[in-house]
């Protein structure tokens, strides 16, 4: 056989560490990208905080009145957050009261009852439902749900823009989210547990509800909390269907603007910088950010604990 000469650079013979400038530059870039998300968070907190501070410094605003006031009327210098907050809570509550039972029902059906074939057919449908843009749901609320509610309960009872319609459709939006997270949690429950329960003579329902669901309870709670955070931050459905103008009411058939709906309406117009309106959306945004952040952190905490059980 012919001998080949392996012609490597001389440096190869030394075992010494060599500088690799290319590697270092690339590594620097990678580190920057990794840290970028931190900058985003800092950006959010800093910008929202700064402008919110300006808002609270306005002579017309004080923190106590902001948190307890039942009127949000910038033109008469009333800045009470409660009307926006209550309508956010009402729409979210309606949404969750639809999404939790249905979402859990779907998840239990998919993970415990459905044959693999049905499951493979239904899961993409859930994904489609989850992938439809929220503006489309908003359209659905306004052109379908609202007329439906008005036919059922009467034109006089139900306003054209109302929280019930927005809430119900929001429930449909959140259903696939809760269903798929719950389904993940249920299918993570080891098969052996189900077998143990069946082996003792449990019926399918007893196995599902008394063994599998309790074993997956933290994953399910996490799903519900994430769903809640999603409902509170949901914007386009309420912007289209829940009504414009803050309104302190607990009647779901009345129109009332939510936190997010208010931000959209105010900023949709021509907003001049440093006006009190401009600053107020940052204050509301900051509030929204902390509510959803808290919920997300709680849910992650729960999921983390859940993992430790089976691994």
């Amino acid at each position, binding site marked *: 056989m012919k001998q080949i000469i392996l012609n490597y650079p001389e440096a190869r013979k030394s075992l010494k560490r060599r500088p690799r400038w290319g590697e270092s530059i690339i590594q620097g870039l990678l580190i920057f990208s990794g840290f970028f998300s931190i900058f985003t968070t800092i950006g959010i907190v800093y910008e929202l905080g700064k402008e919110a501070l300006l808002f609270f410094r306005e002579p017309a605003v004080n923190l106590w009145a902001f948190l307890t006031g039942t009127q949000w009327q910038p033109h008469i210098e009333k800045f009470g957050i409660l009307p926006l907050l209550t309508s956010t809570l009402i729409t979210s509550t309606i949404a969750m009261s639809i999404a939790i039972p249905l979402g859990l029902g779907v998840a239990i059906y998919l993970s415990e009852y459905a044959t693999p074939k049905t499951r493979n057919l239904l899961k993409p449908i859930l994904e489609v439902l989850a992938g439809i843009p929220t503006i489309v749901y908003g359209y659905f609320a306004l052109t379908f749900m609202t007329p439906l509610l008005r036919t059922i309960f009467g034109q006089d009872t139900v306003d054209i823009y109302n929280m019930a319609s927005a809430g119900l459709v929001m429930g449909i939006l959140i259903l696939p989210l809760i269903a798929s997270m719950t389904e993940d949690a249920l299918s993570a429950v080891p098969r052996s547990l189900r077998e143990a*329960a*069946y082996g003792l003579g449990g019926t399918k329902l007893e196995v599902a509800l008394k063994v599998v669901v309790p*074993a997956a309870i933290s994953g399910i709670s996490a799903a519900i909390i994430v769903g809640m955070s999603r409902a509170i931050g949901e914007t386009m459905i309420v912007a289209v269907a829940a009504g414009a103008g803050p309104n302190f009411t607990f009647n779901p058939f009345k129109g009332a603007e939510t936190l997010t709906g208010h931000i959209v309406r105010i900023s949709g117009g021509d907003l001049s910088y440093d006006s009190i309106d401009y600053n107020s959306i940052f204050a509301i945004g900051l509030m929204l950010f902390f509510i959803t952040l808290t919920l997300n952190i709680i849910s992650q905490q729960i999921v983390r604990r859940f993992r430790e059980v089976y691994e």
Partner: protein
Amino acid sequence: MVQPQSKTENSHYVLEAKNLEIYYGSFKAVTDVHMNVERNKITAIIGPSGCGKSTLLRAFNRMNELVSDSSIRGEILFQGQDLYASNVDPVVVRHRIGMVFQKPNPFPKSIYENIAWGARIHGYKGKMDELVEYSLRQAALWDEVKDKLNQSGLALSGGQQQRLCIARALAVQPEVILMDEPASALDPIATLKIEELMQELKKNYTIVIVTHNMQQAARASDYTAMMMLSKDGERSGTVIEFDETKHIFTNPKDKRTEDYVTGRFG
């Protein structure tokens, strides 16, 4: 739903498999099984892995039908009555024929709840505390756990977990206990404890145990069923020899059994 008639006098055996075939989809995993399980005896099923021991065992309490496309042909009689008759409720079958699995699988609940759960779903009427204590004593676990009944069952050691699973199975008062390699995940001392326990339990229960450990079968069982893949190339398992354990281990009729029990197999 009709419950299988208990204690039919005309049948000497608790379980009888006749001409049994078990399928996963179109794959025939077990074929042509004839065997009988006698009351208050320990019957062992031995054989190389993949020959269908678990499949056969799970057919005895209809656990197999939880696999979506499994099916059986032939007959299994429980105290003379067809287990697979259309009017038999699998839930009742599993109440009367309990099961202990290869890997300990306690519920992620307290030790107490692990035992009480099965009793509760079946509408147990007596004092739950007594039942829990009695079942744990029967499983020889009481002394080790009596001070921590509210701890999670998952906090026990492997051997303790398996005994907890046995106690859990006993608590619903089955007549037969099926055990699928109950000691394969345990250390020798825990294994020994389980074997002692089986000897104690057979006074009140009928036990069918799958094992690939031949010493265990020889030590612990009264009857032994030897399973192998049948030769016809179908890769289906079957019982090639079924007899009293001492015959299987000292004087097997089938050459393959002899090779297997003397370790000359494969």
